[in-house]
Protein backbone atom coordinates (compact mmCIF):
# COMPACT_ATOMS: atom_id res chain seq x y z
CA UNK A 1 0.00 0.00 0.00
CA UNK A 2 1.32 3.48 -0.87
CA UNK A 3 2.12 5.97 1.90
CA UNK A 4 -0.51 8.60 1.06
CA UNK A 5 -4.07 8.09 2.28
CA UNK A 6 -7.43 9.80 2.22
CA UNK A 7 -10.09 10.19 4.90
CA UNK A 8 -13.27 12.07 4.13
CA UNK A 9 -15.25 13.47 7.05
CA UNK A 10 -18.43 15.48 7.54
CA UNK A 11 -18.76 18.47 9.84
CA UNK A 12 -22.54 18.23 10.21
CA UNK A 13 -24.81 21.07 9.22
CA UNK A 14 -24.23 22.88 12.51
CA UNK A 15 -20.55 22.46 13.28
CA UNK A 16 -20.98 23.41 16.93
CA UNK A 17 -22.53 20.22 18.26
CA UNK A 18 -22.56 18.03 15.17
CA UNK A 19 -18.87 17.55 14.45
CA UNK A 20 -18.12 14.03 15.64
CA UNK A 21 -15.27 13.04 17.93
CA UNK A 22 -13.70 10.81 15.29
CA UNK A 23 -13.90 13.57 12.68
CA UNK A 24 -12.09 15.94 15.05
CA UNK A 25 -9.44 13.28 15.60
CA UNK A 26 -8.84 12.71 11.89
CA UNK A 27 -8.70 16.44 11.14
CA UNK A 28 -6.10 16.86 13.89
CA UNK A 29 -4.08 13.86 12.77
CA UNK A 30 -3.89 14.67 9.05
CA UNK A 31 -0.78 15.98 7.32
CA UNK A 32 -2.99 18.06 5.06
CA UNK A 33 -6.65 19.09 5.40
CA UNK A 34 -9.04 20.43 2.77
CA UNK A 35 -12.44 21.78 3.71
CA UNK A 36 -15.71 23.13 2.44
CA UNK A 37 -18.04 24.27 5.20
CA UNK A 38 -21.17 26.36 5.39
CA UNK A 39 -20.41 28.68 8.31
CA UNK A 40 -17.55 30.82 9.64
CA UNK A 41 -17.38 28.88 12.90
CA UNK A 42 -16.75 25.66 11.00
CA UNK A 43 -13.96 27.27 9.03
CA UNK A 44 -12.27 28.72 12.12
CA UNK A 45 -12.60 25.43 13.95
CA UNK A 46 -10.94 23.41 11.20
CA UNK A 47 -8.11 25.94 10.94
CA UNK A 48 -7.65 25.75 14.70
CA UNK A 49 -7.63 21.94 14.66
CA UNK A 50 -5.14 21.81 11.81
CA UNK A 51 -3.29 24.89 10.56
CA UNK A 52 -2.52 23.11 7.28
CA UNK A 53 -6.19 23.34 6.34
CA UNK A 54 -6.95 24.76 2.91
CA UNK A 55 -10.37 25.91 1.75
CA UNK A 56 -11.82 24.52 -1.48
CA UNK A 57 -14.16 27.48 -1.78
CA UNK A 58 -11.76 29.21 -4.21
CA UNK A 59 -12.71 26.76 -6.97
CA UNK A 60 -16.27 28.11 -7.10
CA UNK A 61 -16.30 30.74 -9.81
CA UNK A 62 -19.33 32.64 -10.99
CA UNK A 63 -20.72 31.00 -14.12
CA UNK A 64 -18.42 27.96 -13.92
CA UNK A 65 -19.93 24.49 -14.30
CA UNK A 66 -20.19 23.00 -10.82
CA UNK A 67 -19.09 19.61 -12.16
CA UNK A 68 -15.81 21.25 -13.24
CA UNK A 69 -15.45 22.77 -9.77
CA UNK A 70 -15.89 19.34 -8.21
CA UNK A 71 -13.27 17.92 -10.59
CA UNK A 72 -10.89 20.65 -9.42
CA UNK A 73 -11.59 19.64 -5.80
CA UNK A 74 -10.69 16.03 -6.57
CA UNK A 75 -7.55 16.99 -8.47
CA UNK A 76 -6.30 19.11 -5.55
CA UNK A 77 -7.12 16.45 -2.97
CA UNK A 78 -5.46 13.71 -5.01
CA UNK A 79 -2.37 15.86 -5.52
CA UNK A 80 -1.89 15.82 -1.74
CA UNK A 81 -2.53 12.08 -1.49
CA UNK A 82 -0.01 11.37 -4.24
CA UNK A 83 2.54 13.51 -2.38
CA UNK A 84 2.36 10.90 0.37
CA UNK A 85 0.26 12.93 2.82
CA UNK A 86 -2.32 11.51 5.14
CA UNK A 87 -5.00 13.72 3.66
CA UNK A 88 -8.33 14.64 5.21
CA UNK A 89 -11.15 16.36 3.32
CA UNK A 90 -13.99 17.81 5.38
CA UNK A 91 -17.35 18.69 3.82
CA UNK A 92 -20.34 20.21 5.58
CA UNK A 93 -23.18 17.84 6.38
CA UNK A 94 -22.61 14.18 5.58
CA UNK A 95 -19.63 13.95 3.24
CA UNK A 96 -21.26 11.25 1.15
CA UNK A 97 -24.72 12.77 0.76
CA UNK A 98 -25.07 15.16 -2.16
CA UNK A 99 -21.31 15.55 -2.39
CA UNK A 100 -20.06 14.52 -5.82
CA UNK A 101 -16.30 15.10 -5.25
CA UNK A 102 -16.01 13.05 -2.05
CA UNK A 103 -17.08 9.82 -3.71
CA UNK A 104 -14.97 10.54 -6.77
CA UNK A 105 -11.87 11.27 -4.67
CA UNK A 106 -12.27 7.98 -2.80
CA UNK A 107 -12.80 6.10 -6.05
CA UNK A 108 -9.67 7.61 -7.58
CA UNK A 109 -7.55 7.07 -4.47
CA UNK A 110 -8.52 3.41 -4.19
CA UNK A 111 -8.00 2.81 -7.90
CA UNK A 112 -4.44 4.13 -7.52
CA UNK A 113 -3.73 1.89 -4.53
CA UNK A 114 -4.15 4.34 -1.66
CA UNK A 115 -6.10 3.72 1.52
CA UNK A 116 -9.30 5.77 1.36
CA UNK A 117 -12.26 5.88 3.70
CA UNK A 118 -15.33 7.99 4.40
CA UNK A 119 -16.76 8.70 7.86
CA UNK A 120 -20.45 9.58 8.20
CA UNK A 121 -21.66 12.96 9.34
CA UNK A 122 -25.00 14.47 10.22
CA UNK A 123 -26.79 15.29 6.98
CA UNK A 124 -29.53 17.79 6.17
CA UNK A 125 -31.87 14.80 5.91
CA UNK A 126 -31.04 13.78 9.48
CA UNK A 127 -31.83 17.31 10.64
CA UNK A 128 -35.06 17.33 8.63
CA UNK A 129 -36.33 14.15 10.26
CA UNK A 130 -35.62 15.59 13.70
CA UNK A 131 -36.96 19.10 13.07
CA UNK A 132 -40.12 18.12 11.19
CA UNK A 133 -40.87 15.14 13.44
CA UNK A 134 -40.97 12.61 10.65
CA UNK A 135 -40.06 8.96 10.89
CA UNK A 136 -39.32 7.68 7.38
CA UNK A 137 -40.45 4.22 8.46
CA UNK A 138 -44.05 5.32 8.95
CA UNK A 139 -44.98 6.13 5.37
CA UNK A 140 -41.79 5.39 3.52
CA UNK A 141 -39.71 8.19 2.10
CA UNK A 142 -38.66 9.04 -1.41
CA UNK A 143 -35.89 11.55 -2.00
CA UNK A 144 -34.72 13.09 -5.25
CA UNK A 145 -32.46 15.92 -6.26
CA UNK A 146 -34.94 18.39 -7.74
CA UNK A 147 -33.26 18.80 -11.13
CA UNK A 148 -32.81 15.05 -11.42
CA UNK A 149 -36.51 14.61 -10.66
CA UNK A 150 -37.48 17.08 -13.40
CA UNK A 151 -35.27 15.80 -16.21
CA UNK A 152 -35.72 12.08 -15.63
CA UNK A 153 -38.79 9.87 -15.60
CA UNK A 154 -38.89 9.63 -11.81
CA UNK A 155 -42.09 8.41 -10.25
CA UNK A 156 -43.67 9.48 -6.98
CA UNK A 157 -45.71 7.31 -4.65
CA UNK A 158 -48.14 9.85 -3.12
CA UNK A 159 -48.66 7.59 -0.09
CA UNK A 160 -45.02 8.13 0.80
CA UNK A 161 -43.19 11.16 2.19
CA UNK A 162 -41.22 12.91 -0.53
CA UNK A 163 -38.11 15.05 -0.11
CA UNK A 164 -36.85 17.15 -3.02
CA UNK A 165 -33.35 18.56 -2.52
CA UNK A 166 -31.88 21.66 -4.09
CA UNK A 167 -35.22 23.17 -5.11
CA UNK A 168 -33.63 26.63 -5.05
CA UNK A 169 -31.79 26.15 -8.34
CA UNK A 170 -33.68 23.66 -10.48
CA UNK A 171 -31.89 22.92 -13.75
CA UNK A 172 -28.99 25.26 -12.98
CA UNK A 173 -25.62 23.63 -13.61
CA UNK A 174 -23.30 26.54 -12.91
CA UNK A 175 -22.35 28.34 -9.71
CA UNK A 176 -23.98 31.75 -9.26
CA UNK A 177 -22.36 34.04 -6.73
CA UNK A 178 -25.38 36.32 -6.35
CA UNK A 179 -28.20 33.77 -6.29
CA UNK A 180 -30.13 31.67 -8.77
CA UNK A 181 -32.97 32.56 -11.14
CA UNK A 182 -34.43 29.11 -10.52
CA UNK A 183 -35.99 29.09 -13.97
CA UNK A 184 -36.77 25.39 -13.75
CA UNK A 185 -39.20 25.79 -10.85
CA UNK A 186 -42.33 25.92 -13.10
CA UNK A 187 -41.32 22.59 -14.63
CA UNK A 188 -40.93 21.10 -11.17
CA UNK A 189 -44.42 22.29 -10.27
CA UNK A 190 -45.76 20.88 -13.53
CA UNK A 191 -44.43 17.44 -12.65
CA UNK A 192 -45.66 17.60 -9.06
CA UNK A 193 -49.13 18.55 -10.32
CA UNK A 194 -49.36 15.05 -11.80
CA UNK A 195 -49.41 13.66 -8.26
CA UNK A 196 -50.77 16.33 -5.90
CA UNK A 197 -53.65 18.76 -5.64
CA UNK A 198 -52.66 22.43 -5.80
CA UNK A 199 -53.72 22.91 -2.18
CA UNK A 200 -51.64 20.03 -0.82
CA UNK A 201 -49.66 21.22 2.20
CA UNK A 202 -45.90 21.19 1.75
CA UNK A 203 -42.91 22.65 3.60
CA UNK A 204 -39.74 24.45 2.66
CA UNK A 205 -37.02 23.42 5.07
CA UNK A 206 -33.51 24.65 5.84
CA UNK A 207 -31.47 23.16 8.65
CA UNK A 208 -30.00 25.50 11.25
CA UNK A 209 -26.27 26.01 10.83
CA UNK A 210 -25.57 28.10 13.92
CA UNK A 211 -25.93 27.33 17.61
CA UNK A 212 -29.11 28.73 19.10
CA UNK A 213 -30.77 29.32 15.73
CA UNK A 214 -33.95 27.58 14.65
CA UNK A 215 -34.34 25.78 11.34
CA UNK A 216 -36.37 27.48 8.64
CA UNK A 217 -39.73 25.71 8.26
CA UNK A 218 -42.21 27.39 5.95
CA UNK A 219 -45.59 25.68 5.52
CA UNK A 220 -47.63 26.55 2.44
CA UNK A 221 -49.79 25.06 -0.32
CA UNK A 222 -48.03 23.52 -3.29
CA UNK A 223 -49.48 26.11 -5.68
CA UNK A 224 -47.84 28.88 -3.60
CA UNK A 225 -44.33 27.52 -4.18
CA UNK A 226 -43.37 30.15 -6.81
CA UNK A 227 -43.92 32.92 -4.28
CA UNK A 228 -41.97 31.30 -1.44
CA UNK A 229 -38.40 32.59 -0.91
CA UNK A 230 -35.94 29.83 -1.76
CA UNK A 231 -32.19 29.67 -1.22
CA UNK A 232 -29.55 27.16 -2.32
CA UNK A 233 -30.08 25.47 1.05
CA UNK A 234 -33.85 25.02 0.59
CA UNK A 235 -35.41 21.57 0.61
CA UNK A 236 -39.03 20.76 -0.22
CA UNK A 237 -40.78 18.28 2.04
CA UNK A 238 -44.07 16.84 0.74
CA UNK A 239 -46.14 14.89 3.27
CA UNK A 240 -48.08 11.85 2.09
CA UNK A 241 -51.26 12.72 0.23
CA UNK A 242 -53.02 9.39 0.69
CA UNK A 243 -52.89 6.23 2.72
CA UNK A 244 -50.91 3.21 1.58
CA UNK A 245 -52.94 0.54 -0.21
CA UNK A 246 -52.64 -2.76 1.65
CA UNK A 247 -51.58 -5.80 -0.36
CA UNK A 248 -54.13 -8.30 0.98
CA UNK A 249 -52.35 -11.29 -0.51
CA UNK A 250 -49.13 -10.41 1.24
CA UNK A 251 -50.99 -9.83 4.50
CA UNK A 252 -52.41 -13.35 4.18
CA UNK A 253 -49.10 -14.91 3.27
CA UNK A 254 -47.44 -13.30 6.28
CA UNK A 255 -50.28 -14.45 8.55
CA UNK A 256 -51.26 -10.85 9.35
CA UNK A 257 -54.75 -9.49 9.55
CA UNK A 258 -55.90 -6.13 8.28
Amino acid sequence: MKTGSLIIVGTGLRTVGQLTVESIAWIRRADKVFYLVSDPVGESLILQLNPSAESLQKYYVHGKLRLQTYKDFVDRIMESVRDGNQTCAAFYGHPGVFVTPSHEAIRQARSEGYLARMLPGISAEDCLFADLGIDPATSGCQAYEASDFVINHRKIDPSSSVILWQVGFVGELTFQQTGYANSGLPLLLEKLAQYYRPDHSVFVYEAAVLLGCEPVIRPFSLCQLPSVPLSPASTLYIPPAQTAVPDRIMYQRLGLTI
Partner: protein
Amino acid sequence: MARNLMIFLLELAVSPEKHASYVKNPDKAMKQANLDAEECAALKSGDPEKVYASLSGQSVPVAVLGPPATYSICAVSVETHAAVVGPPATYSICAVPVAPQAALVGPPPTYSICAVPAVPQAGVAGQQTISHPVRRD
Protein backbone atom coordinates in the same frame (compact mmCIF):
# COMPACT_ATOMS: atom_id res chain seq x y z
CA MET B 1 -15.36 41.40 15.05
CA ALA B 2 -16.65 39.49 18.04
CA ARG B 3 -13.53 37.58 18.93
CA ASN B 4 -14.84 36.26 22.24
CA LEU B 5 -17.97 34.89 20.59
CA MET B 6 -15.93 32.97 18.03
CA ILE B 7 -13.63 31.55 20.71
CA PHE B 8 -16.67 30.61 22.80
CA LEU B 9 -18.30 28.74 19.92
CA LEU B 10 -15.06 26.96 19.03
CA GLU B 11 -14.79 25.73 22.60
CA LEU B 12 -18.38 24.48 22.58
CA ALA B 13 -17.66 22.55 19.37
CA VAL B 14 -14.87 20.46 20.89
CA SER B 15 -15.71 20.35 24.59
CA PRO B 16 -18.77 18.39 25.74
CA GLU B 17 -18.28 19.80 29.24
CA LYS B 18 -18.44 23.41 28.08
CA HIS B 19 -21.33 22.60 25.77
CA ALA B 20 -23.17 21.04 28.70
CA SER B 21 -22.58 24.17 30.77
CA TYR B 22 -24.06 26.26 27.97
CA VAL B 23 -27.09 24.00 27.64
CA LYS B 24 -27.64 24.11 31.41
CA ASN B 25 -27.30 27.85 31.83
CA PRO B 26 -26.57 29.88 28.67
CA ASP B 27 -26.33 33.23 30.46
CA LYS B 28 -23.84 31.95 33.00
CA ALA B 29 -21.73 30.24 30.34
CA MET B 30 -21.66 33.38 28.17
CA LYS B 31 -20.71 35.51 31.17
CA GLN B 32 -17.87 33.17 32.08
CA ALA B 33 -16.63 33.41 28.50
CA ASN B 34 -16.55 37.22 28.79
CA LEU B 35 -18.98 37.80 25.92
CA ASP B 36 -20.04 41.42 25.72
CA ALA B 37 -23.68 42.51 25.66
CA GLU B 38 -23.83 42.65 21.85
CA GLU B 39 -22.42 39.13 21.52
CA CYS B 40 -24.81 37.75 24.13
CA ALA B 41 -27.76 39.44 22.45
CA ALA B 42 -26.78 38.06 19.04
CA LEU B 43 -26.40 34.50 20.30
CA LYS B 44 -29.64 34.64 22.28
CA SER B 45 -31.60 36.15 19.38
CA GLY B 46 -31.77 32.88 17.45
CA ASP B 47 -31.42 34.98 14.31
CA PRO B 48 -28.67 33.65 12.02
CA GLU B 49 -28.14 37.04 10.43
CA LYS B 50 -27.43 38.64 13.81
CA VAL B 51 -25.03 35.86 14.78
CA TYR B 52 -23.25 36.08 11.43
CA ALA B 53 -23.10 39.86 11.73
CA SER B 54 -21.65 39.60 15.22
CA LEU B 55 -19.06 37.05 14.10
CA SER B 56 -18.00 38.80 10.93
CA GLY B 57 -18.73 42.44 11.58
CA GLN B 58 -20.68 42.54 8.34
CA SER B 59 -24.31 43.61 8.30
CA VAL B 60 -25.24 41.54 5.23
CA PRO B 61 -23.36 38.28 5.45
CA VAL B 62 -22.67 36.35 2.28
CA ALA B 63 -23.56 33.21 4.18
CA VAL B 64 -27.22 34.19 4.01
CA LEU B 65 -27.11 32.97 0.43
CA GLY B 66 -26.53 29.52 1.85
CA PRO B 67 -23.68 27.08 1.44
CA PRO B 68 -22.31 26.31 -2.01
CA ALA B 69 -23.84 23.23 -3.57
CA THR B 70 -21.67 20.14 -3.55
CA TYR B 71 -23.76 18.09 -5.95
CA SER B 72 -24.71 18.61 -9.54
CA ILE B 73 -26.68 16.49 -11.92
CA CYS B 74 -24.85 15.45 -15.05
CA ALA B 75 -27.10 16.56 -17.87
CA VAL B 76 -24.80 15.28 -20.62
CA SER B 77 -24.61 11.58 -20.02
CA VAL B 78 -25.58 9.51 -17.07
CA GLU B 79 -23.49 6.45 -16.38
CA THR B 80 -25.14 3.60 -14.62
CA HIS B 81 -23.71 3.36 -11.14
CA ALA B 82 -21.15 0.59 -11.13
CA ALA B 83 -22.32 -0.65 -7.76
CA VAL B 84 -25.84 -1.06 -9.12
CA VAL B 85 -24.73 -3.08 -12.13
CA GLY B 86 -22.56 -5.28 -9.93
CA PRO B 87 -21.85 -8.94 -10.24
CA PRO B 88 -24.59 -11.56 -10.45
CA ALA B 89 -26.21 -12.36 -7.13
CA THR B 90 -24.28 -14.81 -5.02
CA TYR B 91 -26.83 -15.07 -2.26
CA SER B 92 -30.41 -16.14 -2.10
CA ILE B 93 -32.82 -16.28 0.79
CA CYS B 94 -33.04 -19.69 2.34
CA ALA B 95 -36.49 -21.11 2.98
CA VAL B 96 -35.16 -23.34 5.75
CA PRO B 97 -34.86 -21.48 9.05
CA VAL B 98 -31.23 -20.94 10.03
CA ALA B 99 -30.02 -20.32 13.56
CA PRO B 100 -28.96 -16.67 13.68
CA GLN B 101 -25.27 -15.96 14.10
CA ALA B 102 -24.40 -13.78 17.04
CA ALA B 103 -23.19 -11.01 14.74
CA LEU B 104 -26.48 -11.04 12.88
CA VAL B 105 -28.71 -10.83 15.92
CA GLY B 106 -28.03 -7.11 16.28
CA PRO B 107 -29.91 -4.62 18.38
CA PRO B 108 -33.63 -5.07 18.99
CA PRO B 109 -35.80 -3.29 16.44
CA THR B 110 -37.22 0.06 17.49
CA TYR B 111 -39.93 0.19 14.89
CA SER B 112 -42.77 -2.08 13.79
CA ILE B 113 -45.22 -1.75 10.96
CA CYS B 114 -48.81 -1.28 11.95
CA ALA B 115 -50.96 -3.94 10.30
CA VAL B 116 -53.79 -1.47 10.20
CA PRO B 117 -53.18 0.94 7.31
CA ALA B 118 -51.75 4.14 8.71
CA VAL B 119 -53.25 7.51 8.13
CA PRO B 120 -50.78 9.87 6.44
CA GLN B 121 -48.54 11.49 9.02
CA ALA B 122 -49.79 14.63 10.56
CA GLY B 123 -46.08 15.09 11.11
CA VAL B 124 -45.07 18.69 10.70
CA ALA B 125 -48.57 20.05 10.97
CA GLY B 126 -48.05 20.49 14.67
CA GLN B 127 -44.98 22.60 14.06
CA GLN B 128 -46.73 25.35 12.17
CA THR B 129 -46.94 27.45 15.30
CA ILE B 130 -43.18 27.49 15.76
CA SER B 131 -41.72 30.88 15.13
CA HIS B 132 -38.87 30.72 12.67
CA PRO B 133 -36.63 33.48 11.49
CA VAL B 134 -37.54 34.54 8.00
CA ARG B 135 -34.54 34.74 5.77
CA ARG B 136 -34.42 37.66 3.41
CA ASP B 137 -32.38 36.12 0.67
